[in-house]
């Protein structure tokens, strides 16, 4: 008898929705059952494209009812995440839920979603950088106390996405602003690496940083004194591909990590070591976009199959929304963050 496959529906036929759909459809344990988008153009085209594959294409989330879905992926713009996730849970459209980052457009809405999670269900948010081999290696080094006591870090997230685009304020805002759209990844990594921290609030811009429509900078502090700085920009010159990274200082040396490599300088041993993606077994069963997307989806599906938890869960990811809200409050900003 064949294995019962997990029936998955994907909401949103943008680039992230198609990417997850492609990866999920590759997985033997998954049956890509339904796709949903509100754009009439996309639905019409998708119906033609997927008609022979037996995949239902609908223009309304309510039409997921009766499809006996086990899991739903929410890959729509951030402002709609809460509404869709709430509908999935309240209308019992599926038990397990994956939401692309960020979980919600505000911490209050993220908290509400956490309270709606059914018992014995798997929930996860798409912070895919956790599944990158370089950031995973940095996490391992920190767990092994390779730096001794960590005292500070500097984190950045840069892209040229809205460079030279005179409509950038509007488009970046529609995508959630610089912190939700791009900076959230490095905030999540910092929370993963160092645990909870507080956003430093000050009237002095040199201390508190800035928050603009396409960029942001802010400082954080952990209760034991560890300090961190974040710098995020979506209009940075020559960042053809978005890049995020951290420079971490500890009593025994430093770690610099980004999407391409991780380097540790151990001052106590007087040596430095660099690992590139090539050195860290970066191959996957099926490549689409980046290798981390496959590992991320595999982790979610495996968690469903073994009735376990997946990370970053809604509860974990809600902390990113909390940090972003606190940055906004610290700057007294009415910006869309």
């Amino acid at each position, binding site marked *: 008898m064949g294995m019962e496959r997990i029936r998955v529906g994907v909401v949103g*036929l*943008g*680039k992230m929705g*198609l*990417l997850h*759909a*492609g*990866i999920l*459809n*590759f997985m033997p344990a998954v049956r890509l059952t339904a796709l949903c988008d509100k*754009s009439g*153009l*996309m639905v*019409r*085209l998708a119906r*033609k*494209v*997927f008609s*022979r*594959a037996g995949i239902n294409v609908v223009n309304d989330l309510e039409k997921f009812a009766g499809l006996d879905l086990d899991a739903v992926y929410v890959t729509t*713009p951030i402002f709609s995440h809460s509404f869709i996730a709430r509908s999935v849970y309240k209308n019992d459209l599926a038990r397990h839920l994956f939401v692309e980052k960020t979980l919600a457009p505000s911490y209050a809405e993220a908290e509400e979603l956490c309270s709606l999670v059914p018992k014995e269900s798997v929930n996860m948010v798409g912070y895919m950088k956790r599944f990158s081999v370089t950031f995973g290696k940095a996490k391992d080094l920190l767990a092994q106390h390779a730096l001794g006591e960590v005292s500070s870090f500097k984190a950045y997230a840069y892209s040229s*996405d*809205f460079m030279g*685009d005179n*409509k*950038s304020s509007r*488009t970046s805002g529609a*995508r959630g602003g610089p912190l939700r759209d791009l900076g959230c990844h490095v905030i999540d990594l910092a929370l993963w690496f160092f645990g909870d921290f507080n956003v430093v609030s000050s009237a002095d811009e040199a201390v508190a940083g800035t928050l603009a429509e396409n960029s942001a900078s802010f400082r954080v502090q952990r209760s034991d004194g560890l300090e961190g700085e974040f710098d995020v920009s979506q209009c940075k010159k*020559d*960042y*053809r*591909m978005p*890049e995020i990274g951290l420079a971490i200082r500890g009593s025994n040396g430093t770690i610099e990590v*980004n*999407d*391409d*490599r991780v380097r540790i300088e151990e001052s106590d041993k007087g040596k430095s070591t660099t690992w*590139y*993606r*090539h050195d860290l077994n*970066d*191959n*996957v*069963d*099926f*490549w*689409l*976009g980046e*290798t981390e997307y496959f590992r991320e989806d595999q982790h979610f599906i495996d968690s469903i199959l073994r009735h376990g938890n997946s990370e970053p869960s809604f509860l974990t990811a809600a902390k990113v929304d909390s940090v972003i809200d606190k940055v906004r409050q610290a700057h007294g900003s009415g910006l869309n963050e």
Partner: protein
Amino acid sequence: MNDQELLLVGDNPFHGISHLSQERARARGEGAGSPEKAAELVLASLQNGANGFAFSVSELTLSILRSIRKQNSGSLDLYPMVPYAFEYVRIATQTGTPGLARKLAKQIVLSGGPRAIATGARAVLTMNPSSLLSTYLTYEISRVKSSAGKRMNIVSLVLNEVMTDLALGLNLDWLFKSYVKFLSRRKIIPGFNTRNFPFFVQKFKEWNIDTRDILIATPFNRAGFQMNPSKLECEKTLADLANPTVLAISILAAGYLRPPAAFEYLTELPNLKGIVAGVSTEQQARTTFTLLEKSFRTAKESV
């Protein structure tokens, strides 16, 4: 395809792409971005053993073609890759996927004559996926031809890896069949760039699409970089192919490997049709292609 190895000069350095280090790519991107300079590098590569130019179809590479046309009176074999995913993803980021579709449709309609407009409009109205694909490919081919002129010849049109691998994942056999049929009719070799080489070959066998008449561009390097699911699986699939139809890309694993050892590995692979290598300086153009030509010649003579 004939028996001669394809030694193609690639365009990644001209766009400032490095999969090893984005820092390095940023530093490199500024200098090589000039179309005239890039054209000189392509021509220098051709003088030193390269026998074709592989590139993503973008405003920059079309300018490079125009510059080559001005500087060179000889013929040149072209291996354009479509779509230029970076630009389309950027537009989708700014406008959403429906916005991208609308913008592309507008470009296609405005670029053609009355017949192209009518064909494009019919494809959009009926939403027939194969017709939309044909309309799009006609648009990209005409862009290349109008910049390249008559002395340059499109040997193969290569489908970008994001599209190829997305279509593989979604099991869209009709897309591959339509692509092969459309290009074969135009005497252009259908090409596919993939980072899932063994799965690609498996699916093509399943769908009864003959891999002997296509070109497959896929990573092959000693480091196993981007060779999914594993270096071993990729090598085994290559060895089992009936005809040499594979172009190795990422041959230096994005700068992780050094040329002599990296090229030695490639010459040991069976069934390889050729390689694509990017160059950033004239010195690199000379050393890379001279060494590649010599490595393949020596390997052939020793058989």
